[in-house]
């Protein structure tokens, strides 16, 4: 067979040319048919599925998955002939170098858009991979707050989440409001924080806005500790020695549990344990593990709007399917994919540049999260994104501020840890 082809003078180049011509005819002659062939849009969901953030990765993946299922159940992307979304999984292991390799792998395997990846340090590595790719694809940061992520000059990077700038400002604003409502003002505060990229930036923004807004308390001690820590007894002893009225903490999940446990043991009693933007306190596992000790913990977080009908439906769906409360992680991960779907619908194509163009024109009014309309700034930040102050009550995180969306009344100062029985 092969020799016959050769004799007939058909070499590989001719075959390729012929195929190219046939392809051109196809495009010109039957554009509708070709377009309908994009049956599947691959969304790479890169999350910390193993390693120290695995518990969080599980919830963010669940959020991504629920959104994909909702979009598909509603008929897929209609402008692309009802193309269905498929989630292609990736795992950062909470390691920048792995996140980078996973990004490259998913791009190679034909993912059209990426979402992820909860931890700012790892997202930073993903952005480098996208910037250096010959065929970059868009990244929608569903969760990841460090300001600099969207300031690196890549037009393919969008963030539907809030920035640490917003987190820092809202955190202090809500605190001032809380002091006003309760008539109790702390004088001395201690700030504990982890030393990963998010922890560092969140600390800086908190201090920055503390100064800008002239908050009435003073930071008497700032204690940084490594993310890998398995023991916080000395850190808490140090905090206790500073005699704080208020304890602010930026933690992950495991250390959040260690922290409160240790405060109870060492009888550190404060007006409140509060996150100025803390991914540990709202996690369902925090209140499940600590029970009464988790109660009344306050956290300024990108939350969802509990008063919106859409949110209530999504939250109920989520809880029914996964058996836990919708939180920041699952809620914003859900939102990230929904924004991607909205952009794809308007772009009518999986072409990265068309995606970027449509992305800039995004204006979503009805959505699940806290804050105003979702619109993207020139560098890809969601200008509408905002936060809420939540408090753990009866094992659930409930909104206490802003007043318009509050689910329950704020308790401040909180009952002593030691007296909760």
């Amino acid at each position, binding site marked *: 067979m092969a020799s016959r082809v050769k004799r007939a003078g058909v070499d590989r180049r001719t075959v390729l040319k012929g195929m190219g011509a046939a392809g051109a005819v196809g495009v010109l002659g039957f554009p509708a048919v070709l377009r309908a062939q994009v049956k599947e849009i691959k969304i790479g969901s890169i999350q910390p599925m*193993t390693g120290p953030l695995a*518990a969080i990765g*599980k919830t963010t993946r669940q959020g991504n998955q629920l959104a994909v299922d909702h979009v598909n159940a509603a008929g897929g992307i209609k402008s692309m002939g009802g193309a269905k979304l498929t989630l292609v999984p990736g795992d950062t292991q909470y390691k920048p170098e792995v996140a980078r390799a996973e990004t490259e792998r998913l791009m190679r395997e034909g993912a059209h858009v990426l979402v992820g990846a909860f931890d700012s340090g790892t997202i930073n590595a993903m952005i480098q991979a996208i910037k250096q790719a010959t065929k970059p694809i868009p990244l929608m940061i569903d969760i990841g707050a460090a300001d600099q992520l969207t300031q690196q000059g890549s037009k393919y990077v969008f963030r539907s989440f809030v920035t640490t700038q917003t987190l820092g400002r809202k955190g202090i604003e809500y605190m001032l409001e809380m002091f006003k409502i309760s008539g109790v003002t702390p004088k001395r505060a201690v700030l504990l924080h982890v030393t990963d990229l998010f922890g560092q930036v969140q600390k800086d923004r908190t201090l920055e806005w503390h100064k800008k807004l002239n908050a009435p308390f003073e930071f008497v001690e700032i204690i940084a500790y*490594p993310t890998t820590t398995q*023991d916080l007894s000395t850190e808490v002893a*140090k905090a206790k020695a500073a005699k704080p009225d208020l304890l602010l903490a930026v933690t992950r999940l495991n250390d959040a*549990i*260690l922290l409160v446990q240790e405060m109870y043991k060492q009888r550190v009693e404060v007006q409140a344990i509060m996150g100025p933007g803390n991914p540990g306190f709202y996690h369902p596992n925090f209140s499940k*593990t600590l029970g009464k000790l988790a109660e009344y913990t306050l956290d300024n977080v990108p939350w969802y709007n509990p008063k919106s009908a859409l949110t209530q439906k999504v939250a109920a769906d989520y809880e029914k399917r996964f058996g836990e409360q919708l939180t920041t992680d699952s809620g914003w991960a859900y939102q990230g994919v929904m924004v991607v779907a909205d952009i794809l619908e308007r772009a009518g194509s999986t072409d990265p540049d068309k995606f970027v163009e449509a992305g800039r024109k995004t204006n979503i009014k009805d959505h699940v999260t806290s804050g105003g309309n979702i619109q993207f700034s020139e560098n890809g930040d969601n200008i509408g994104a905002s936060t809420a102050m939540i408090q753990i009550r009866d094992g659930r995180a409930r909104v206490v501020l802003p007043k318009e969306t509050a689910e329950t009344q704020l308790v401040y100062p909180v009952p002593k840890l030691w007296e909760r029985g």
Partner: protein
Amino acid sequence: MSLYVQAIVNGFLVGGVYSLMALGLSLIFGVMRVINFAHGDMMVWGMYLSYWLFVTAGVDPYLSILVTGSAVFLLGAAVQKGLVNRILDAPHEMQILLMLGVALVLENVALMVWGPDPRRVSTTYALSTFWLGPIVFDLPKVATFGLALALALGLYLFLKKTDLGRMIRAASDNQIGALLVGTDILKVFTLAFGIGAACVGAAGSLMTPFLPFSPSTGLFFTVTSFNIVIIGGMGSFLGAFVGGLLVGMSESLGAVILVPSLKEIVSFVLLVLILLFRPQGLLGSGR
């Protein structure tokens, strides 16, 4: 001042468990010359077993060390018999790869079986403390320290006084000599790996009352044990013990004197100093 005393107390109590972990690693290395990179993950399996016994049957973790110790003993012995025995003569990098592989498998099986959520064994006394003046003592940590000490002492007596112990020490001191006097070396190896694993499995159980854990917890403890063993002296019993206390205290004091974010650096600086000035370790025999 009381802050420093508190830091020393905390460090000392944590150091006790570190010692028990490191003893296991040191024993395995001393006999087989193989570094058990799955050490921390074997510990995590001990933790999960304790957790499981606690939630299903209400067995106190301090009692379940008997079960977890034996179970992780079997795990260690199986790893030795099935895997390590085959590569005893292979170059070091091969052994390291194999043990890293075992670590990966153990961690990810734990992830599949137990899920990623952190677990805590909430015994009634988990949060109990007592006070001596301004210094707080964490009751479970004190109990853990005491039991770790007792287990270490038991291991010491076993190695010194029993025939099996003597065989293990003989194999560790001089393999060919041990072979010549008729020791079944492979059997001793299996036993030694099992005992080393049992130590760390028991250490895991002992820590569950005060340490929330997840499948990824293991790596930190593998690195810490390794660090301790080098500081104390590879294969030295007393070295591993003293090294554990030293690392526990240096981390705790480092957090007070320097900043907590540098606390792990203190023990690694200690490691570098030891490697520079006393490469055989504090109490190593300088082979």
